């Protein structure tokens, strides 16, 4: 068992109904790194992430977190596995009937024996970490989209997971808020040693945060590039990867195929 590898994805094949989305892809995520999953729209980035967190069952292949299978584990194994990661969904997915504080207290309440006072203190600390301390008693409907995403990160961190999965953290945010969010990710990764798995296609954010990336291709349903973003930009053979990093549009026909 290699202690440096935290997530192993092995020969993962995924389908939506009869449409193949991912074709036998394999990769590994190292402990403590910021790992970014990239690709054009509709190439299966979010699908890949939903498989990694066990929401979808793969057609074939396996995903292991610390050598425990996400696909096959049940009962207590699964509960232990779920405690290892937190997830920030694209829309935030905060529970609409609870305040931000209650949202973050909920996992603490369910999985720990902390007193109410301790729970609220921890929740306030997590909210402070993402800069939302003064919004603790607001409902999710009363705050902006960027705040929801930050609050969702705070909730995902409630139980101090080892891994955070972020689905398009900066999509739909203005550049300043997105940059703040990137800063937050880097800070959390450095100070708490959290492993990040991020799905995105925001180029500035990739350059800023990513330690390593993989790039999915909508056409072949496979990984077309893997490595550090700067290196990939220089060395890649693949035209589409080059276009992506250089923000270059392709001709209309090719754009349709890849998009």
């Amino acid at each position, binding site marked *: 068992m290699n202690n440096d590898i935290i997530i192993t994805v092995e020969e993962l094949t995924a389908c939506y109904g009869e449409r193949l989305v991912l074709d036998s892809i394999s990769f590994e995520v190292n402990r403590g790194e910021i790992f970014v999953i990239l690709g054009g729209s509709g190439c299966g980035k979010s699908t890949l992430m939903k498989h990694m967190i066990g929401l979808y069952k793969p057609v074939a292949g396996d995903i292991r977190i610390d050598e425990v299978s996400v696909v096959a584990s049940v009962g207590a194994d699964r509960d232990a596995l*779920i405690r290892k990661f937190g997830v920030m969904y*694209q829309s935030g*997915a905060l529970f*609409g009937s609870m305040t931000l504080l209650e949202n973050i207290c909920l*996992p603490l309440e*369910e999985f720990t024996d902390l007193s109410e006072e301790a729970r609220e203190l921890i929740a306030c600390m997590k909210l402070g970490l993402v800069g939302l301390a003064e919004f603790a008693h607001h409902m999710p409907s009363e705050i902006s989209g960027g705040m929801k995403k930050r609050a969702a990160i705070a909730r995902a961190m409630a139980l101090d997971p080892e891994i955070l999965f972020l689905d398009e953290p900066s999509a739909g945010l203005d550049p300043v808020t997105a940059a703040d969010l990137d800063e937050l990710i880097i800070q959390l990764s450095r100070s708490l040693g959290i492993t990040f798995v991020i799905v995105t296609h925001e180029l500035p954010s990739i350059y800023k945060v990513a330690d390593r990336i993989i790039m999915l291709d909508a056409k072949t349903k496979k990984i077309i590039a893997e490595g550090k973003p700067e290196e990939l930009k220089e060395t890649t053979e693949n035209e589409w990867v080059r276009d992506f990093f250089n923000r270059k549009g392709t001709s209309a*026909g090719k754009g*349709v195929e890849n998009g």
Partner: protein
Amino acid sequence: MSPLQNRAHCEESVLDGALRFKISGHLDAQSVPELWSEVHHALKAKTMASVTVEGSAISYCDGAGIALLVYIRRTARDAGIVVDFHGLEADIADLLALFPEETLASVPVAKLPSWSDLVGRIGKSFSEGLVGIGEQIVFLGEVMAGLFRIIRHPSQLRFKDLMVIVEASGPRALPIVGMLGFLIGLIIAFQGAILMKQFGAEIYVADSSGLLMARELGPLITAIIVAGRTGSAFAAEIGTMKVNEELDAFSTMGLDPVRFLVIPRVIAASFMTPLLTVFAILFGLAGGAVVMLGMGYPLVTYVNRVIAALSPADYVGGLFKALIFGFLIAASGCLCGLRTGEGASAVGHSATRAVVSSIMLVVLADGLFAVLFFYLGI
């Protein structure tokens, strides 16, 4: 620009099989339809050797205008002719170049349903129906297991959530339940009175409307109101949570949506429906009283008749039915919510399905109860 200048024109001429369109003016969604039929007739009517479009006088062209040009190009191509576009202004030519024939080639052709499709669809919906019934049975099992868990560990129930749902599904429904109960009590008493009067037995209206309200109509109208108000709300709430990925968030946080969302709703609806039913019965009897008073019977006579006619078993049976109705409505509302697909229309669909299936379940259960009570002699 005056309306006259605004108009678009198309002149077509044929010379030795060479079809020539001269299009001019402002081509937009308002002016194009008229030209379209002209162009269509010209293209269909004539056998042509070549097609030319003279477009130097087109002053403005939007998507509809380009569609007209593309239409000419395509129809001509089907006849094996390449259209010659003459004198198009540069920006219009650029716009046309955005729609090359090859990217438009795959406009889907609507498939006409055939008989074999019909058989396939019947089979598919039947097997889907079976799967749905299976899902419902599994779900009922999960809910029952969840309820037993709560009975054993009451601390697992989230009382705050429960109270919010109780308030929304119980007290807030009182006005509508009371009003409908009163009106229906009034109507059945009135109809009964007309019939009974022929036999001089108006006093029995008290018996009949009392029995009907307590045993059948009270629980049934309450259940229908609860299905429409509360069952659909449950489906819409949970469905919206599904669309917002909140249900995914529950499961990746290791929290059971059945325990968090379904159990409080089932408990709330199961207890609120009988209470609302009591209210409906009371107001129904009040409606009957109004009719009896109108026919000159004193209130005390009516009340005595009702008390004499109804046994405690009638009340208890009616309230027990209401409890089961509430359970069925909440369970099917929550199930429809959890099975919501993607998008906003899926939420509406779930709410509709929740109301339809819960009313159906309620009426089916009512039929079963009628048989059961008959054999038990209640």
